[in-house]
Structures are given as C-alpha cells and as structure tokens.
C-alpha cells in the first residue's frame, strides 16, 4: 500500500511557487501551480539543475538553468534539450490541510 509522508501545510505554498524537501532521503519538489499541487523530483533531467524556484505557469515548470519546461502532471519535458521525463509522485491534501506525498 502507498504510504503518504507529511510534507508541510498547503497554505505555506503560494500560487505558482515551489518548495523542496527531503522525503525518505529523496529530494522532492512540491509545486503549487495555480492552486493545483504536484510533487516531482527536484532535479532537471537535462543537466541535473535543481528545479526549485523555476517559473511556474499553467501546469509547467521551467528549469532555472536552461529553461526546459516540464509538465508537472505527467513529468514530460517540452522541446529538444531532454527527452527524459521527471519522476512524479502521488500527492494528497489531508483534511487538516497538510500536503502528503507518497514516495
């Protein structure tokens, strides 16, 4: 069965922002894309830059280093710099408003 780990309260994450944290030894990025929450690896599949702080628009995050855009829902990159998708993780908001990620 999937085990969800508590991350932090959903209200701490502003719209179109992201925050990284270690869960089970993994560097996970939690994103708020216009009110939808997503959890992905905090590492770009192009040249391993951290994605935290990358600009989020619609359901895409742009890597701060060379700008590759990843679909936060599917992990799929756009364009030619990389074809390797990001890992995505199931995420839920608890009744108490806590973001929980299954890693």
């Amino acid at each position, binding site marked *: 069965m999937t085990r969800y780990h508590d991350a932090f309260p959903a209200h701490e994450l502003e719209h179109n922002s992201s925050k990284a944290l270690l869960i089970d030894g993994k560097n996970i990025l939690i994103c708020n894309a216009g009110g939808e929450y997503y959890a992905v690896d905090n590492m770009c599949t192009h040249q391993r830059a951290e994605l935290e702080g990358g*600009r989020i628009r619609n359901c895409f995050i*742009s890597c701060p280093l060379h700008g590759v855009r990843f679909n936060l829902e599917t992990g799929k990159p756009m364009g*030619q710099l990389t074809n390797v998708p990001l890992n995505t993780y199931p995420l839920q908001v608890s009744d108490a408003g806590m973001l929980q990620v299954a890693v």
Partner: protein
Amino acid sequence: MTTTDKARQQGDNVRCQGTSFQDLLDLEEVEVPLYLRENSCDHMGDEDLDVARWVSREYHDLEAKKLWPKAWQMACREEDIPEVGDHHVYEVINESVIITRSSENEIKGFINSCLHRGRLLRDEDGHVKEFKCPFHGATWDLDGDFKGIPCKWDFRHLDEKDMKLPQVKVGTWGGFVFINFDEHAQPLEEYLAPLPDHFSRYPLHDYYKGIHVQRVVKCNWKVGAEAFMESFHTVATHSQIMTFTGDANSQYDTFGDNISRSVTPMGVPSPHLSGVSEEDVMRDILELSGRMALNSSDGQILPAGVSARKYVADTNRGLFEDACGEDLSQATMAELEDAILYSAFPNFQIWVGYHGNIVYRFLPNGDDHNSCIFDIMLLMRYPKGSEKPAAVPVNKLDPNLPFSCAEELGALGPVFDQDDSNMPAVQRGMLASKKGTVSLATYQESRIRHLHQTIDKYLKA
C-alpha cells in the same frame, strides 16, 4: 467617385459586372471611413512570371541573401512573451533570433548563437533569468551583457573582445513584434505605412491571441502567401461559400511597395450565381463562413425588407459589442462582415475587423524551398475592464493532419483544407511545367504581381 475617373489602373480599369465594393459602401448607413474609399491598383503590366521564382534553389538562395536579411518580418506577438525573461525563438532559413522581454517595457532580439563555439543559446521558447549556454556554460544577462564562462583563466584573450550578444532591430505594431536584421532598416512604422493608419479603428495591441495553429505545407512560402491574395479561386476551390461571397466583385489595392489588400464583399451572392435568395445568403453565411459571430442559422429569421448583408452585419455588431464591451454603432457593414485582408511584405497578412481578426504568416521551412511553415492566428476581444486573457500557446499540427483536425478553427479548418489541396499541388505542378512560366489575371491577381515586383527590388538591389 468611380474608378474610371482615376489614373490608369491594372486591367485598364476593366472590372467584373455587378455590384462593386464601392457600390456597397454607398449603401452604408453610417459614415464610411476614408481608407475604405481608397481604390488604387496602379498599372503593373501583364508579363508571365518564371516558375523559377517558386521552384529554383538559386532563387531561394538569392532570397536568403538579399530579401530576408533586409525586410521587416513579423516574429511573434508581444503577449507571447509577457514577463521579463520570456522569450521566443524566431527562425527564418538558417537565421535564429532570441526575442526576449529584457525589461518590463523593452523587447530585444539577440542572434541565437553562443559567442564561444557557436551553439544555439536557446533551443526553444521559454523563460529564463539569464542565457546560459548548455554546452560549456557561457552566460549573458537579458540585456545581452556577458556574465562569464567557467575556467575564466583559459579565456584571457577574450577580455578585449566585444562579448555583447549581437542584436537585431525590433519594432512593434498592433501587438506584433517585428524584427529586421539590417541595422540601417527604415523605421517599422514607415515601412508599414499606410497600414497602421488604415487599422486605427481596431486597437489590435489590445486584442488577445485566442487561436494559434501552425503546420508545415509542402510548397514554397510564396505559393502559400499567394493562396490568400486573390478571391478568384473561390469559384473553383471554395464553391460552398459562393452564395454569400462577392468573389469576382472583390477590390484589389496596392499601397507603395509593401502593402496590398483585397476586399471581398460578404453577405452578397457571387456574380457567378443567379437566383440566390436573401434567405439563402443569410443561412449559408452563418453556417459556412467560419468567421461570423454565430456559427449556426438556427432560429435566425430574416425580417421582411432587410438584406442579408445588413442582417448579418447587425447580428455581428451585437455580438462583437458584447465581446469587447464597446459601442460599435458607427461600424460599417463592410467592417463587420467583409473579407478585408491586408498583407505587409513579405509574408504577414491580417484581416480588418472588430473581433476575430485572422492573421496568416508563411515562412520558409528552414532551408527547404519546397515547403513552408503556415501560421494561422485569431485575434479576439475581451470585455473592457476585465483582465486580458493570456495568449494561447501555438498548436503545432502534425504535417500529415488536415487543418480540420485543429478543432479550434471551426468552419475555417475545412476551408484551409481546400486551400491545402492546391498549395502542394501548385508546387509539384510548377516543378513539372514545360511552359516554364505562370500567367496572372490582370486585376484579380494583381497583388501577386505586386509581391513579385517588390521581391525584385530586393533581389536586384
């Protein structure tokens, strides 16, 4: 004013029988803007044109050397790069330019090539805070100033070199971003004249891009552009729109070297047909044109004594007023429904109108002279006082799919598919031609002759 009072025009002023666009303007119930009254199509001759213009590699190379480096070209919409750091990669033949919003109110264009070993700096559109080359990490800021490269100790010889990213000229009009590779190019406004003046009733900079479809078409970029420069092909290619399109009564005008237009009356039957009732006109235009405010004629009944042209114009007036929250009581029927299509040399085309203006662009497909990239955009209105909707991202259609697969195009999709059934076949047919030239209709294809006369000025310069 009649055309015969004027200087000698293309076709010696011979025009199709029937109601002309100028006759229709006489029936307008509000003041007609002066630009619609203009009627100019200077005599340009009737000589055949060599097919080499469209099919020869040498001709393409000449354009690459003498036309594209000198002409203003529409690259994107300002709204495509709304935030500082947003950028669009504009490519034409082998040129590549990063068009970026470098600060809130400034857009710059940089040659997209790293000053280290030349890698593309940006592979595609997106958003960055600085331009960092993916190969070795050389970096420039959004103003094009050099920020450094790893292992600086190995590049002391670059210290005295100008490491600023080279720029192209950038101009904006109507919310469009244009670029020019020539630093001595005349100002954009001057180049586009009189188009900005003719469009002064339509604040295009404040329209938003609601549809953007792009697809490769297997023909030279000029075959594509020319497919939208004459309404003569309506009778054979788009016969479904004849009941409401005054195709052969269209007016064609040229203004200087760069601007031309065609004005095709709508809401009137083709002079090729007879016995079309006003009810037929109304039903078909609503159902089939793809660019009226309603897409169906359900529940629409033509009141006695009202022409279809007026009825449709008034229907559009109401719906366009709702869309933009402005009073359009002074809009003419012509502006509300006719196909008034301008082109700015070499490849930018835009419709007049208060809502739903279509935009076309045809660019060479990389270095291939036998194919091109066709962009279709629709510019839309939003109610005054509400927030401007974001521009849609481009929908890049698979080259093997018909335009009707782009659902957002609605009834326009099948019309483009009809054009697409000709464009590649024109290219193939010209390659096979033993005549070796094409002939043009004197008047109805005058805009195509005008395009080529302007190209000649560039290529012979």
